């Protein structure tokens, strides 16, 4: 025997919509995605919801639960009080398609703007060797499941639609950091492009991206701030610039 949950679910599309109240039974051990599926099966057959793995690894069921960007499959029903009304809305930084499904194509466009890894031309296949300590920093960033919760919560685009043109967002800052820290990547102007093309300077490091990351990637501390410091190296620090000129090396580019 489960308990009755009171949900308020967004129903509608870009033109019109609102919150619909519904009561649904929840069993012990269930997550919010389970009860959404029960609502869909029993009460709202046309409720649109995007989901896939139900294991917190595909990043499909991103939505906002009581105002917080979360994965529905990783949000336990038991974490809510008896009698509490749970509000479930689509991601509010992106255009809504229908009900809980949003159009996240903004992120795919931004992904295409990041210049890909370039391998050293003089290194033959099989000759590339890297120490574990050189790649482990980047490996943290490879845990990203592209749920786009960090993008959704980032106030730079969530609260300012006009910034979407010039700001890539935290998900792509970890991509840029991963590439810039890669010992073999030959692209040498990632710091400059992070600032000029991807809008790194817009970030005011309020760490919301880190707070919502379901993979617990320390986005701000390990990617954004290190990238900001690298940008300072090449753009704002006269002593570093002077040092690189005197020592005639381009190691910081």
């Amino acid at each position, binding site marked *: 025997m489960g308990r009755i949950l009171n949900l308020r679910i967004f129903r509608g599309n*870009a033109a019109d*919509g609102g919150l619909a109240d519904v009561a649904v039974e929840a069993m012990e051990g269930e997550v919010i995605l389970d009860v959404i599926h029960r609502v869909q099966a029993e009460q709202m057959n046309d409720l649109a919801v995007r989901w896939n793995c139900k294991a917190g690894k595909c990043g499909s069921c991103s939505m906002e639960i009581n105002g917080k960007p979360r994965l529905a499959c990783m949000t336990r029903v038991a974490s809510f009080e008896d009698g509490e009304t749970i509000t479930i809305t689509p991601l509010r930084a992106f255009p809504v398609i229908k009900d809980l499904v949003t159009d996240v194509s903004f992120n795919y466009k931004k992904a295409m703007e990041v210049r890909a890894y370039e391998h050293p031309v003089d290194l033959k296949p099989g000759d590339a060797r890297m120490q574990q300590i050189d790649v482990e920093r980047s490996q943290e960033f490879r845990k990203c499941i592209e749920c786009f919760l960090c993008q*959704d919560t980032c*106030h730079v685009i*969530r609260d300012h639609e006009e910034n979407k043109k010039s700001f890539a967002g935290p998900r792509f800052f970890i991509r840029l950091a991963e590439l810039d820290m890669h010992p073999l990547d030959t692209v040498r102007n990632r710091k400059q492009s992070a600032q000029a093309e991807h809008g790194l300077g817009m970030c*005011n490091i309020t760490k919301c991206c880190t707070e919502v990351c379901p993979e617990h990637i320390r986005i701000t501390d390990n990617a954004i701030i290190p990238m900001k410091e690298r940008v300072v190296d090449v753009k704002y620090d006269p002593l570093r610039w002077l040092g690189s000129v005197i020592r005639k090396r381009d190691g910081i580019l």
Partner: protein
Amino acid sequence: MANGVFTEGRATLSARTFRTDKWWLQPLFTVIVLLSFIVYATFRAFENGKYFAEPLISPFYSPCLSTACVNGSTSFVGTIFGTYHILGMTVSPSLFILIFPLAFRLTCYYYRKAYYRSFWMSPPACAVAEPHSKYTGETRAPLIIQNGHRYAFYAGLVFNVFLTIDAIGAFRNERGQWGHMSVGTLVLLANATFLWLYSASCHTCRHTVGGRLRNFSHHPVRYKLWTWVSILNHKHQNFAWISLFGVALADLYVRQVSGHSIRNLYFF
């Protein structure tokens, strides 16, 4: 025109946030604590008194570099500034130096998060709509100056050295004889320790010791340093608060001793 979460095309919802937790508590707490510190520090900086009680000197006045410093409190590097008067009042020696630790904290990555959220509400909390219609981040003046954090960090290190020397100097008694220890010694030692931990855990420190490298394997010593600083960096927020309280409490202790409100108890 509607902007932010009310932009056309997004879910048509009228609430700025649907968060049900007390999201406003943290920014409110930050405002209260930081404002309290600012008020106290400003009062002490302008008070121009009760900052020295042999062998203790307040961290708000060290190094004391002005000829206006009270007898015995002048730094070992001597005086750089003269005695100046504005509107008939002597300019406090504290005003010549406080700009440096202040700049370190103002540009600190942790404090930036704290005051952007709590004072500027940009945003007040995660997924809570901010009240501003435009946002340019740290791309233009005056906030672009945040990129100078590393210079404030270097200045902060110099101050840590002075305050550590003060703490060592507190192993003397009121007559300047070495080999003594008092509650004031512990207070200044704790203050210097917390300040070193705050500086060592700084993101700029982490970048400087090794974070900027691409190949850790080519720099094993710097890699080791980076791993140590990274461990401290996890606690940077805690050290930021503890060291802030530490400075204020150390100053308060010296003020009370100097004003003869309490006696500096000697262990030996």
